[in-house]
């Protein structure tokens, strides 16, 4: 075979040559970054502007928004999280045209407006793993703009605890002849550890201010209500103890924070230490501290870090994954894989559920995306290793054939009414309207009904594994839908029949005294108590300090 097989490599060399006068070795001064980006980028390039769930390459984002749109335009942005105003400013200025992403939390409304006006084309909304996977197939970045804590002269990168997406992005870009530019908080002679080798990095800039990180996973125990305590009691007794769940992932929110804070009290009282919740795929949630200190938790692998948890994590290397420097090494891609394949249970809160059990956090005017929940909140059909919890769930699901199979436990938590008396159970998800308005091929469903095994509300637990027909599933969901219009459409006789065989279980069926559901059952009732549990190692961000 003859021909030209190295066009990307040559193109890369040309771009680096154009940028040569702007850099001293790999290092570039902050004020020259817009010029550097104009030299490195070509119109239509596919660019990963590192926006993770927590860490943001915010200086590079601001610099990219300052390039001349006559020179750099119509970029195709591929990034997991669209969190900063600058991310969307790119599209307002015509620097960006197309976007493939996973999650857009704080920018959800503006993103919907830009997409509606035609200034921004959405390629697809992904889960994290799905987007990383496409980095290695058909969405490989030509240029990656990433963030790290520190770099040395050769451009080796130290990410600190928030490694997050960086290794996945850099790997895909660097090994397909792309270009990698990193912003760092400091330049040092000797790094505490190397998270990304300098040979994979083309340019480094010291940002004028440290990169932005949000404490997304901190939940103040003072804001946990009694209903959440009650639901946590049901989950511990009716699901964790019942199936012997040892390996799990918790979603973000007050509902799961309540479960974490009930392990040292309620679960301990039930004799469950060592029998449940031993291995976790989880960010270092401050509300997990009491469970760690009480000996429930053996290991935690993390997607990212959490502000304030650095010293605590560093002091518990038997539990957390840490580097030789002592600090956490997180890794979103590997932790998502761990949550998908090696956990027996995913549990998370949702906003809306229909009678098939489909759930969604989408509302009409917001394009929030998915993040990582669907990677963990689904049955891992490629899984082959057996554990008691997985085998039992598979047995309950039946399936008709002779071949036994396991099943991931996927639990959805929701109060029957949200605040302002919005019913959480509906006949039709808002996701349908959003799909119509945005001309999306599919309604954005966070967890599909056929993956959900248990629905937990203040009214009880619906075990969908034990339901044999779509009608039975709908009736089991109605049974726990309380006083919502959907719930009040239930048939008393049908619910009692489901209760008779355990497909619906009320608190009293689980041996739970509802009156015990008070905040007194929480192992910590304030952030200050979490600090005390940590022996003073947890240093909460200022906004969580009230003392």
């Amino acid at each position, binding site marked *: 075979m003859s021909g030209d097989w190295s066009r990307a490599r040559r193109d890369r060399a040309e771009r680096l040559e154009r940028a040569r006068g702007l850099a001293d070795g790999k290092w570039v001064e902050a004020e020259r970054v817009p010029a550097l980006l104009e030299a490195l980028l070509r119109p239509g390039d596919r660019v990963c502007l590192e926006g993770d769930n927590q860490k943001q390459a915010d200086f590079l984002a601001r610099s990219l928004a300052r390039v001349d749109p006559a020179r750099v335009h119509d970029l195709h942005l591929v990034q997991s999280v669209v969190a900063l105003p600058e991310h969307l400013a790119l599209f307002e200025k015509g620097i960006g045209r197309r976007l493939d992403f996973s999650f857009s939390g704080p920018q959800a409304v503006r993103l919907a407006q830009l997409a509606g006006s035609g200034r921004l084309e959405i390629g697809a909304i992904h889960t994290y793993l799905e987007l990383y996977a496409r980095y290695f197939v058909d969405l490989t970045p030509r240029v990656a703009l990433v963030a790290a804590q520190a770099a040395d002269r050769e451009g080796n990168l130290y990410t600190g605890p928030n490694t997050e997406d960086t290794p996945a992005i850099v790997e895909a870009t660097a090994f397909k002849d792309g270009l990698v530019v990193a912003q760092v908080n400091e330049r040092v002679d000797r790094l505490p550890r190397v998270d990304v080798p300098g040979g994979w990095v083309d340019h480094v800039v010291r940002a004028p201010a440290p990169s932005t990180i949000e404490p997304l996973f901190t939940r103040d125990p003072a804001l946990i209500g009694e*209903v959440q305590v009650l639901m946590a009691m049901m989950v511990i007794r009716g699901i964790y103890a019942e199936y012997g769940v040892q390996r799990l992932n918790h979603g973000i929110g007050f509902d799961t924070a309540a479960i974490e804070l009930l392990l040292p009290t309620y679960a301990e009282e039930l004799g469950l230490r060592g029998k449940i919740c031993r291995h976790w795929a989880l960010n270092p949630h401050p509300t997990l501290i009491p469970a760690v200190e009480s000996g429930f938790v053996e290991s935690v692998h993390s997607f990212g870090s959490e502000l304030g948890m650095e010293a605590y994590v560093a002091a518990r290397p038997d539990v957390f994954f840490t580097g030789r420097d002592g600090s956490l090494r997180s890794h979103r891609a590997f932790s998502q894989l761990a949550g998908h394949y090696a956990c027996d249970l995913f549990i998370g809160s949702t906003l809306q559920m229909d009678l098939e059990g489909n759930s969604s956090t989408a509302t009409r005017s917001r394009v929030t995306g998915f993040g990582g929940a669907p990677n963990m909140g689904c049955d891992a059909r490629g899984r082959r290793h057996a554990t008691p919890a997985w085998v039992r769930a598979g047995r309950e699901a039946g399936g008709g054939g002779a071949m036994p199979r396991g099943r991931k436990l996927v639990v959805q938590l929701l*109060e*029957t009414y*949200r605040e302002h008396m919005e019913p959480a159970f509906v006949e039709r998800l808002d996701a349908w309207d959003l799909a119509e308005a945005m001309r999306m091929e599919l309604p954005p469903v966070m967890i599909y009904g056929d993956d959900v095994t248990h629905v937990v509300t203040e009214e009880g637990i619906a075990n969908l594994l034990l339901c044999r027909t779509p009608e039975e599933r709908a009736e089991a969901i109605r049974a726990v839908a309380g006083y919502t219009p959907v719930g009040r459409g239930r048939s008393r006789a049908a619910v009692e029949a489901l209760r008779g065989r355990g497909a619906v279980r009320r608190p009293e069926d689980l041996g739970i005294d509802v009156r015990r559901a008070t905040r007194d059952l929480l192992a910590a009732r304030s952030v200050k108590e979490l600090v005390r549990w940590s022996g003073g190692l947890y240093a909460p961000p200022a906004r969580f300090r009230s003392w």
Partner: protein
Amino acid sequence: MEHLAFEIDSREEGGPPRPPVLVGAVGSGNLEVLVEPGGTAAGRCRVEVHTSAGGFGAVWEAVLRDFAERHPVAGLSLAVNDGGATPAVVSLRLGQALREYRGRDR
């Protein structure tokens, strides 16, 4: 502010009337419940609700009927000041108020 009043059938617990109790606090998403003896016909429980969330009379009635079916509350009057609590919080708070009322003599 909406005002609702219900007279609901229930069972009688028996025993002497006890001093009134007040449980909870009015705040956004929360409520206070006053339980006191009397003020109602035999075999009935009287409930007065002042709520900041209008238009949920049918939901209140369903929540209160279930409560009166599960617990013997005939012969009692309940006064509820609601700051837009969900039915989940209402049910829990009613249960706590009743326990507080009964618990006095134990």
